[in-house]
Protein backbone atom coordinates (compact mmCIF):
# COMPACT_ATOMS: atom_id res chain seq x y z
CA UNK A 1 0.00 0.00 0.00
CA UNK A 2 1.34 3.43 -0.97
CA UNK A 3 2.40 5.69 1.86
CA UNK A 4 1.81 8.81 -0.25
CA UNK A 5 -1.55 10.37 0.30
CA UNK A 6 -3.17 13.63 -0.65
CA UNK A 7 -3.33 14.58 3.03
CA UNK A 8 0.47 14.52 3.18
CA UNK A 9 0.79 16.73 0.12
CA UNK A 10 -1.67 19.40 1.26
CA UNK A 11 -0.65 21.15 4.47
CA UNK A 12 -3.51 21.65 6.90
CA UNK A 13 -2.80 25.39 7.12
CA UNK A 14 -3.56 26.01 3.46
CA UNK A 15 -6.31 28.44 2.58
CA UNK A 16 -9.45 26.77 1.29
CA UNK A 17 -10.18 27.04 -2.40
CA UNK A 18 -12.16 30.00 -3.65
CA UNK A 19 -15.73 28.83 -4.16
CA UNK A 20 -17.01 28.71 -7.71
CA UNK A 21 -19.07 31.64 -8.87
CA UNK A 22 -22.66 30.37 -9.07
CA UNK A 23 -24.43 29.70 -12.40
CA UNK A 24 -21.30 29.96 -14.58
CA UNK A 25 -21.54 26.39 -15.84
CA UNK A 26 -25.29 26.66 -16.42
CA UNK A 27 -24.92 29.84 -18.50
CA UNK A 28 -22.03 28.28 -20.44
CA UNK A 29 -24.15 25.21 -21.12
CA UNK A 30 -27.06 27.39 -22.25
CA UNK A 31 -24.82 29.13 -24.79
CA UNK A 32 -23.44 25.78 -26.01
CA UNK A 33 -26.99 24.42 -26.22
CA UNK A 34 -28.05 27.44 -28.28
CA UNK A 35 -25.20 26.78 -30.71
CA UNK A 36 -26.17 23.10 -30.97
CA UNK A 37 -29.85 23.95 -31.53
CA UNK A 38 -29.04 26.38 -34.37
CA UNK A 39 -26.42 24.06 -35.94
CA UNK A 40 -28.59 20.97 -35.89
CA UNK A 41 -31.68 22.97 -36.87
CA UNK A 42 -29.86 24.33 -39.93
CA UNK A 43 -28.88 20.81 -40.98
CA UNK A 44 -32.46 19.62 -40.53
CA UNK A 45 -33.75 22.58 -42.54
CA UNK A 46 -31.35 21.71 -45.34
CA UNK A 47 -32.62 18.11 -45.29
CA UNK A 48 -36.26 19.24 -45.50
CA UNK A 49 -35.51 21.68 -48.32
CA UNK A 50 -33.61 19.05 -50.32
CA UNK A 51 -36.50 16.64 -49.88
CA UNK A 52 -39.04 19.29 -50.91
CA UNK A 53 -37.05 20.15 -54.06
CA UNK A 54 -36.77 16.44 -54.88
CA UNK A 55 -40.50 15.89 -54.56
CA UNK A 56 -41.26 19.07 -56.51
CA UNK A 57 -39.12 17.87 -59.40
CA UNK A 58 -41.26 14.72 -59.90
CA UNK A 59 -38.17 12.51 -59.58
CA UNK A 60 -40.11 9.81 -57.75
CA UNK A 61 -40.33 9.03 -54.05
CA UNK A 62 -37.82 10.57 -51.66
CA UNK A 63 -36.69 7.23 -50.26
CA UNK A 64 -35.01 4.99 -52.83
CA UNK A 65 -37.02 1.95 -53.93
CA UNK A 66 -36.80 -0.93 -51.46
CA UNK A 67 -35.98 1.40 -48.56
CA UNK A 68 -38.61 1.79 -45.90
CA UNK A 69 -38.55 3.59 -42.55
CA UNK A 70 -40.51 1.54 -39.99
CA UNK A 71 -42.16 3.57 -37.27
CA UNK A 72 -41.80 1.13 -34.37
CA UNK A 73 -38.13 1.88 -33.71
CA UNK A 74 -38.37 5.70 -33.94
CA UNK A 75 -41.35 5.64 -31.57
CA UNK A 76 -39.55 3.34 -29.13
CA UNK A 77 -36.52 5.65 -29.32
CA UNK A 78 -38.81 8.58 -28.48
CA UNK A 79 -40.25 6.71 -25.50
CA UNK A 80 -36.75 5.73 -24.35
CA UNK A 81 -35.63 9.35 -24.44
CA UNK A 82 -38.75 10.48 -22.55
CA UNK A 83 -37.90 7.91 -19.85
CA UNK A 84 -34.37 9.34 -19.74
CA UNK A 85 -35.80 12.80 -19.03
CA UNK A 86 -37.43 11.40 -15.91
CA UNK A 87 -34.19 9.79 -14.71
CA UNK A 88 -32.19 12.97 -15.40
CA UNK A 89 -34.63 15.02 -13.31
CA UNK A 90 -34.41 12.26 -10.68
CA UNK A 91 -30.60 12.67 -10.61
CA UNK A 92 -30.82 16.43 -10.05
CA UNK A 93 -33.60 16.15 -7.47
CA UNK A 94 -31.80 13.46 -5.46
CA UNK A 95 -28.56 15.46 -5.46
CA UNK A 96 -30.50 18.46 -4.17
CA UNK A 97 -31.52 16.22 -1.28
CA UNK A 98 -27.92 15.04 -0.81
CA UNK A 99 -29.11 11.53 -1.68
CA UNK A 100 -25.99 10.39 -3.53
CA UNK A 101 -27.03 6.76 -3.95
CA UNK A 102 -30.12 7.77 -5.88
CA UNK A 103 -28.07 10.27 -7.89
CA UNK A 104 -25.69 7.56 -9.08
CA UNK A 105 -28.55 5.20 -9.93
CA UNK A 106 -30.36 7.95 -11.85
CA UNK A 107 -27.23 9.06 -13.73
CA UNK A 108 -26.44 5.42 -14.58
CA UNK A 109 -29.98 4.79 -15.82
CA UNK A 110 -29.93 7.95 -17.94
CA UNK A 111 -26.69 6.89 -19.61
CA UNK A 112 -28.14 3.40 -20.11
CA UNK A 113 -31.15 4.96 -21.87
CA UNK A 114 -28.69 6.90 -24.03
CA UNK A 115 -26.95 3.66 -25.03
CA UNK A 116 -30.37 2.09 -25.70
CA UNK A 117 -31.21 4.99 -28.02
CA UNK A 118 -27.92 4.56 -29.92
CA UNK A 119 -28.47 0.79 -30.20
CA UNK A 120 -32.01 1.29 -31.50
CA UNK A 121 -30.77 3.81 -34.06
CA UNK A 122 -28.18 1.31 -35.28
CA UNK A 123 -30.87 -1.38 -35.51
CA UNK A 124 -33.18 0.99 -37.42
CA UNK A 125 -30.43 1.86 -39.90
CA UNK A 126 -29.70 -1.83 -40.46
CA UNK A 127 -33.42 -2.52 -41.01
CA UNK A 128 -33.70 0.31 -43.52
CA UNK A 129 -30.75 -0.94 -45.55
CA UNK A 130 -30.14 2.45 -47.12
CA UNK A 131 -26.83 2.18 -49.01
CA UNK A 132 -24.64 5.19 -48.30
CA UNK A 133 -22.59 4.75 -51.47
CA UNK A 134 -23.91 4.90 -55.02
CA UNK A 135 -26.69 7.38 -54.33
CA UNK A 136 -26.06 10.03 -56.97
CA UNK A 137 -28.81 12.27 -55.60
CA UNK A 138 -27.00 12.56 -52.25
CA UNK A 139 -30.05 11.50 -50.29
CA UNK A 140 -28.36 8.78 -48.26
CA UNK A 141 -25.34 10.89 -47.13
CA UNK A 142 -27.72 13.65 -46.06
CA UNK A 143 -29.90 11.17 -44.19
CA UNK A 144 -26.90 9.70 -42.37
CA UNK A 145 -25.48 13.20 -41.70
CA UNK A 146 -28.62 14.26 -39.83
CA UNK A 147 -28.96 11.03 -37.84
CA UNK A 148 -25.20 10.84 -37.23
CA UNK A 149 -25.13 14.42 -35.97
CA UNK A 150 -27.83 13.64 -33.46
CA UNK A 151 -25.95 10.53 -32.35
CA UNK A 152 -22.87 12.70 -31.82
CA UNK A 153 -24.91 15.20 -29.78
CA UNK A 154 -26.32 12.32 -27.73
CA UNK A 155 -22.78 11.02 -27.15
CA UNK A 156 -21.71 14.46 -25.94
CA UNK A 157 -24.72 14.65 -23.61
CA UNK A 158 -23.90 11.20 -22.21
CA UNK A 159 -20.25 12.16 -21.70
CA UNK A 160 -21.31 15.40 -19.98
CA UNK A 161 -23.66 13.51 -17.67
CA UNK A 162 -21.05 10.82 -16.95
CA UNK A 163 -18.37 13.40 -16.09
CA UNK A 164 -20.75 15.28 -13.81
CA UNK A 165 -21.68 11.96 -12.20
CA UNK A 166 -18.01 11.23 -11.57
CA UNK A 167 -17.48 14.73 -10.16
CA UNK A 168 -20.48 14.18 -7.88
CA UNK A 169 -18.85 10.93 -6.82
CA UNK A 170 -15.67 12.90 -6.10
CA UNK A 171 -17.60 15.25 -3.82
CA UNK A 172 -17.59 18.31 -6.13
CA UNK A 173 -21.36 18.65 -5.91
CA UNK A 174 -23.78 18.55 -3.02
CA UNK A 175 -27.25 19.76 -2.05
CA UNK A 176 -26.10 23.40 -2.11
CA UNK A 177 -24.24 23.13 -5.40
CA UNK A 178 -25.81 20.98 -8.11
CA UNK A 179 -24.70 23.18 -10.96
CA UNK A 180 -22.87 20.47 -12.89
CA UNK A 181 -25.88 18.20 -12.87
CA UNK A 182 -28.15 21.13 -13.75
CA UNK A 183 -26.00 21.87 -16.78
CA UNK A 184 -25.87 18.22 -17.86
CA UNK A 185 -29.64 17.91 -17.42
CA UNK A 186 -30.25 21.03 -19.49
CA UNK A 187 -28.11 19.72 -22.33
CA UNK A 188 -29.90 16.36 -22.09
CA UNK A 189 -33.28 18.09 -22.45
CA UNK A 190 -32.01 19.96 -25.52
CA UNK A 191 -30.78 16.67 -27.01
CA UNK A 192 -34.19 15.05 -26.51
CA UNK A 193 -35.99 18.10 -27.94
CA UNK A 194 -33.79 17.93 -31.03
CA UNK A 195 -34.63 14.25 -31.39
CA UNK A 196 -38.33 15.12 -31.53
CA UNK A 197 -37.62 17.70 -34.25
CA UNK A 198 -35.74 15.00 -36.19
CA UNK A 199 -38.42 12.38 -35.42
CA UNK A 200 -41.06 14.61 -36.97
CA UNK A 201 -39.01 15.80 -39.95
CA UNK A 202 -37.43 12.48 -40.94
CA UNK A 203 -39.27 9.53 -39.47
CA UNK A 204 -42.87 10.80 -39.46
CA UNK A 205 -43.13 12.96 -42.58
CA UNK A 206 -40.55 10.76 -44.41
Amino acid at each position, binding site marked *: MSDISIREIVPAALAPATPNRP*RLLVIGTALASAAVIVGFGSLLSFYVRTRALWLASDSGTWLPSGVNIPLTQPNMMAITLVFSLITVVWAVASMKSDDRSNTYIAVGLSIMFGFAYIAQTAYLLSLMGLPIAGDDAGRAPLFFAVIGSHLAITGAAMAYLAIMGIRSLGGNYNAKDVEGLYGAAMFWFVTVALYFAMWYAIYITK
Partner: protein
Amino acid sequence: MMLTWGSKFSFGIGFGALFGAVVMGLVTGGDFVGVISSGYKGGVGDHIAYGILIFIGLAMIVVGVVTTIARDGDPEELTQRTGISSVSAVTPPAFPSYWAPLSAFGVVALIVGVALSPAFIILGVIALAVVALEWCIQAWADHASGDAEVNEVMRQRLIGPVELPLLSTLAIAAVVIGSSRVLLAVSKTGSVVVACVAAALIFGTIILLSRVEVSRRIMTGIVAIFAVAVLAGGIVGAAAGERDFHHVDEAGEH
Protein backbone atom coordinates in the same frame (compact mmCIF):
# COMPACT_ATOMS: atom_id res chain seq x y z
CA MET B 1 -40.61 37.89 -11.70
CA MET B 2 -38.81 40.84 -13.17
CA LEU B 3 -36.99 40.18 -16.39
CA THR B 4 -33.30 41.04 -16.32
CA TRP B 5 -31.54 43.02 -19.04
CA GLY B 6 -29.80 39.95 -20.40
CA SER B 7 -33.00 37.94 -20.59
CA LYS B 8 -34.87 40.84 -22.22
CA PHE B 9 -32.15 40.96 -24.85
CA SER B 10 -32.33 37.17 -25.42
CA PHE B 11 -36.13 37.03 -25.48
CA GLY B 12 -36.15 40.02 -27.83
CA ILE B 13 -33.89 38.29 -30.32
CA GLY B 14 -35.78 35.01 -29.84
CA PHE B 15 -39.27 36.32 -30.46
CA GLY B 16 -37.91 38.62 -33.17
CA ALA B 17 -36.45 35.59 -34.95
CA LEU B 18 -39.75 33.70 -34.63
CA PHE B 19 -41.61 36.69 -36.05
CA GLY B 20 -38.96 36.95 -38.76
CA ALA B 21 -39.52 33.28 -39.61
CA VAL B 22 -43.24 33.93 -40.11
CA VAL B 23 -42.54 36.94 -42.33
CA MET B 24 -39.83 35.05 -44.23
CA GLY B 25 -42.18 32.12 -44.78
CA LEU B 26 -44.94 34.35 -46.10
CA VAL B 27 -42.76 36.41 -48.46
CA THR B 28 -41.07 33.31 -49.90
CA GLY B 29 -44.26 31.58 -50.94
CA GLY B 30 -45.54 29.88 -47.78
CA ASP B 31 -49.17 30.08 -46.76
CA PHE B 32 -50.27 31.45 -43.41
CA VAL B 33 -51.46 28.18 -41.83
CA GLY B 34 -48.33 26.35 -43.00
CA VAL B 35 -46.03 29.03 -41.58
CA ILE B 36 -47.87 29.12 -38.24
CA SER B 37 -47.99 25.31 -37.93
CA SER B 38 -44.32 24.80 -38.96
CA GLY B 39 -45.39 23.09 -42.16
CA TYR B 40 -47.84 20.65 -40.61
CA LYS B 41 -50.60 22.00 -42.87
CA GLY B 42 -49.33 23.90 -45.88
CA GLY B 43 -46.02 25.29 -47.11
CA VAL B 44 -43.45 27.32 -45.19
CA GLY B 45 -41.77 29.02 -48.15
CA ASP B 46 -37.97 28.84 -48.13
CA HIS B 47 -37.25 25.89 -45.82
CA ILE B 48 -33.68 26.83 -44.90
CA ALA B 49 -34.35 30.49 -44.05
CA TYR B 50 -37.55 29.58 -42.21
CA GLY B 51 -35.91 26.70 -40.33
CA ILE B 52 -32.81 28.64 -39.28
CA LEU B 53 -34.91 31.55 -37.98
CA ILE B 54 -37.19 29.17 -36.06
CA PHE B 55 -34.23 27.43 -34.42
CA ILE B 56 -32.48 30.74 -33.65
CA GLY B 57 -35.73 31.84 -31.97
CA LEU B 58 -35.94 28.66 -29.88
CA ALA B 59 -32.24 28.81 -28.96
CA MET B 60 -32.45 32.41 -27.79
CA ILE B 61 -35.57 31.64 -25.75
CA VAL B 62 -33.58 28.87 -24.00
CA VAL B 63 -30.79 31.38 -23.30
CA GLY B 64 -33.39 33.90 -22.09
CA VAL B 65 -34.91 31.42 -19.64
CA VAL B 66 -31.47 30.55 -18.25
CA THR B 67 -30.38 34.18 -17.90
CA THR B 68 -33.68 34.90 -16.13
CA ILE B 69 -33.04 32.07 -13.66
CA ALA B 70 -29.40 33.10 -13.24
CA ARG B 71 -30.46 36.77 -12.85
CA ASP B 72 -27.71 37.81 -15.29
CA GLY B 73 -25.12 36.73 -12.72
CA ASP B 74 -25.91 39.74 -10.53
CA PRO B 75 -23.88 39.21 -7.30
CA GLU B 76 -26.53 40.65 -4.95
CA GLU B 77 -29.32 38.51 -6.32
CA LEU B 78 -27.12 35.42 -6.41
CA THR B 79 -26.20 35.78 -2.74
CA GLN B 80 -29.90 36.01 -1.83
CA ARG B 81 -30.92 33.06 -3.99
CA THR B 82 -28.06 30.69 -3.24
CA GLY B 83 -27.77 31.53 0.44
CA ILE B 84 -24.03 32.22 0.31
CA SER B 85 -22.45 35.20 2.03
CA SER B 86 -20.67 36.60 -1.02
CA VAL B 87 -20.20 35.76 -4.68
CA SER B 88 -16.56 35.27 -5.56
CA ALA B 89 -15.05 36.71 -8.69
CA VAL B 90 -14.22 34.38 -11.55
CA THR B 91 -10.67 33.17 -10.97
CA PRO B 92 -8.60 32.71 -14.11
CA PRO B 93 -6.58 29.47 -14.28
CA ALA B 94 -3.12 29.79 -12.76
CA PHE B 95 -1.47 27.60 -15.39
CA PRO B 96 -2.25 27.20 -19.11
CA SER B 97 -4.39 24.22 -19.99
CA TYR B 98 -3.99 22.45 -23.32
CA TRP B 99 -6.99 20.16 -23.01
CA ALA B 100 -9.33 22.36 -25.06
CA PRO B 101 -7.11 22.42 -28.19
CA LEU B 102 -6.31 18.73 -27.69
CA SER B 103 -10.02 17.90 -27.52
CA ALA B 104 -10.52 19.90 -30.76
CA PHE B 105 -7.77 17.74 -32.28
CA GLY B 106 -9.62 14.61 -31.13
CA VAL B 107 -12.98 15.76 -32.51
CA VAL B 108 -11.42 16.66 -35.88
CA ALA B 109 -9.69 13.27 -36.02
CA LEU B 110 -13.00 11.56 -35.22
CA ILE B 111 -14.91 13.44 -37.94
CA VAL B 112 -12.17 12.87 -40.50
CA GLY B 113 -12.06 9.21 -39.49
CA VAL B 114 -15.77 8.72 -40.09
CA ALA B 115 -15.34 10.11 -43.60
CA LEU B 116 -11.94 8.76 -44.59
CA SER B 117 -10.17 6.19 -42.47
CA PRO B 118 -10.89 4.05 -39.36
CA ALA B 119 -7.35 4.78 -38.13
CA PHE B 120 -8.37 8.37 -37.44
CA ILE B 121 -11.45 7.19 -35.53
CA ILE B 122 -9.20 5.22 -33.16
CA LEU B 123 -6.89 8.22 -32.83
CA GLY B 124 -9.84 10.53 -32.08
CA VAL B 125 -11.34 8.18 -29.48
CA ILE B 126 -7.98 7.79 -27.72
CA ALA B 127 -7.39 11.57 -27.77
CA LEU B 128 -10.84 12.33 -26.35
CA ALA B 129 -10.51 9.65 -23.65
CA VAL B 130 -7.15 11.07 -22.55
CA VAL B 131 -8.54 14.61 -22.59
CA ALA B 132 -11.60 13.58 -20.52
CA LEU B 133 -9.37 12.01 -17.86
CA GLU B 134 -6.86 14.85 -17.77
CA TRP B 135 -9.49 17.58 -17.80
CA CYS B 136 -11.45 15.98 -14.95
CA ILE B 137 -8.34 15.84 -12.80
CA GLN B 138 -7.35 19.38 -13.78
CA ALA B 139 -10.83 20.65 -12.79
CA TRP B 140 -10.59 18.84 -9.46
CA ALA B 141 -7.04 20.03 -8.72
CA ASP B 142 -7.80 23.67 -9.62
CA HIS B 143 -10.20 23.83 -6.69
CA ALA B 144 -8.41 21.56 -4.27
CA SER B 145 -6.99 24.42 -2.22
CA GLY B 146 -6.46 28.17 -2.32
CA ASP B 147 -2.80 27.81 -3.37
CA ALA B 148 -2.29 27.38 -7.11
CA GLU B 149 1.23 25.96 -6.68
CA VAL B 150 0.02 23.26 -4.29
CA ASN B 151 -2.88 22.48 -6.60
CA GLU B 152 -0.46 21.89 -9.47
CA VAL B 153 1.71 19.64 -7.25
CA MET B 154 -1.40 17.66 -6.32
CA ARG B 155 -2.35 17.28 -9.95
CA GLN B 156 1.15 16.11 -10.81
CA ARG B 157 1.20 13.62 -7.92
CA LEU B 158 -2.13 12.16 -8.98
CA ILE B 159 -1.81 11.99 -12.78
CA GLY B 160 1.92 12.53 -13.29
CA PRO B 161 2.95 8.83 -13.29
CA VAL B 162 0.53 8.04 -16.11
CA GLU B 163 0.45 11.40 -17.86
CA LEU B 164 3.76 11.11 -19.67
CA PRO B 165 3.11 7.56 -20.98
CA LEU B 166 -0.44 8.51 -21.99
CA LEU B 167 0.52 11.68 -23.85
CA SER B 168 3.57 9.98 -25.39
CA THR B 169 1.40 7.14 -26.68
CA LEU B 170 -1.07 9.65 -28.09
CA ALA B 171 1.69 11.66 -29.77
CA ILE B 172 3.29 8.52 -31.24
CA ALA B 173 -0.11 7.29 -32.49
CA ALA B 174 -0.83 10.69 -34.09
CA VAL B 175 2.55 10.81 -35.83
CA VAL B 176 2.38 7.19 -36.99
CA ILE B 177 -1.19 7.42 -38.31
CA GLY B 178 -0.78 10.87 -39.87
CA SER B 179 2.58 10.29 -41.50
CA SER B 180 1.71 6.75 -42.66
CA ARG B 181 -1.28 8.13 -44.64
CA VAL B 182 1.11 10.54 -46.40
CA LEU B 183 3.72 7.85 -47.08
CA LEU B 184 1.06 5.49 -48.47
CA ALA B 185 -0.41 8.18 -50.72
CA VAL B 186 2.77 9.39 -52.46
CA SER B 187 4.89 7.33 -54.87
CA LYS B 188 7.53 4.86 -53.70
CA THR B 189 10.36 7.33 -54.30
CA GLY B 190 8.26 10.18 -52.98
CA SER B 191 7.69 8.35 -49.71
CA VAL B 192 11.46 7.99 -49.20
CA VAL B 193 11.94 11.70 -49.94
CA VAL B 194 9.08 12.73 -47.62
CA ALA B 195 10.38 10.52 -44.79
CA CYS B 196 13.92 11.88 -45.16
CA VAL B 197 12.78 15.53 -45.27
CA ALA B 198 10.47 15.06 -42.25
CA ALA B 199 13.20 13.30 -40.27
CA ALA B 200 15.72 16.02 -41.16
CA LEU B 201 13.26 18.74 -40.15
CA ILE B 202 12.55 17.11 -36.79
CA PHE B 203 16.23 16.48 -36.15
CA GLY B 204 17.20 20.03 -37.15
CA THR B 205 14.47 21.57 -35.00
CA ILE B 206 15.51 19.55 -31.96
CA ILE B 207 19.18 20.51 -32.42
CA LEU B 208 18.22 24.16 -32.79
CA LEU B 209 15.98 24.10 -29.72
CA SER B 210 18.69 22.47 -27.63
CA ARG B 211 21.13 25.29 -28.41
CA VAL B 212 18.93 28.33 -27.79
CA GLU B 213 16.78 29.48 -24.89
CA VAL B 214 13.20 28.96 -25.94
CA SER B 215 10.22 30.06 -23.87
CA ARG B 216 7.45 27.61 -23.03
CA ARG B 217 5.04 29.51 -25.29
CA ILE B 218 7.27 29.20 -28.34
CA MET B 219 7.79 25.50 -27.59
CA THR B 220 4.02 25.05 -27.33
CA GLY B 221 3.54 26.88 -30.62
CA ILE B 222 6.08 24.64 -32.38
CA VAL B 223 4.40 21.50 -31.03
CA ALA B 224 0.98 22.83 -32.07
CA ILE B 225 2.18 23.60 -35.61
CA PHE B 226 3.71 20.12 -35.82
CA ALA B 227 0.45 18.51 -34.61
CA VAL B 228 -1.65 20.46 -37.13
CA ALA B 229 0.83 19.60 -39.91
CA VAL B 230 0.65 15.88 -39.06
CA LEU B 231 -3.15 15.94 -38.95
CA ALA B 232 -3.46 17.99 -42.15
CA GLY B 233 -0.96 15.75 -43.96
CA GLY B 234 -2.81 12.68 -42.75
CA ILE B 235 -6.17 14.06 -43.93
CA VAL B 236 -4.80 14.93 -47.38
CA GLY B 237 -3.08 11.55 -47.60
CA ALA B 238 -6.18 9.63 -46.52
CA ALA B 239 -8.35 11.61 -48.95
CA ALA B 240 -5.92 10.91 -51.82
CA GLY B 241 -5.96 7.21 -50.99
CA GLU B 242 -3.17 4.66 -51.10
CA ARG B 243 -1.00 4.23 -54.19
CA ASP B 244 -1.17 0.97 -56.16
CA PHE B 245 0.98 -1.74 -54.66
CA HIS B 246 2.33 -4.53 -56.85
CA HIS B 247 1.99 -7.80 -54.99
CA VAL B 248 4.53 -10.58 -55.39
CA ASP B 249 2.97 -13.95 -56.26
CA GLU B 250 4.34 -17.37 -55.24
CA ALA B 251 6.46 -17.57 -58.37
CA GLY B 252 8.18 -14.36 -57.36
CA GLU B 253 6.71 -12.34 -60.20
CA HIS B 254 5.22 -8.85 -59.79
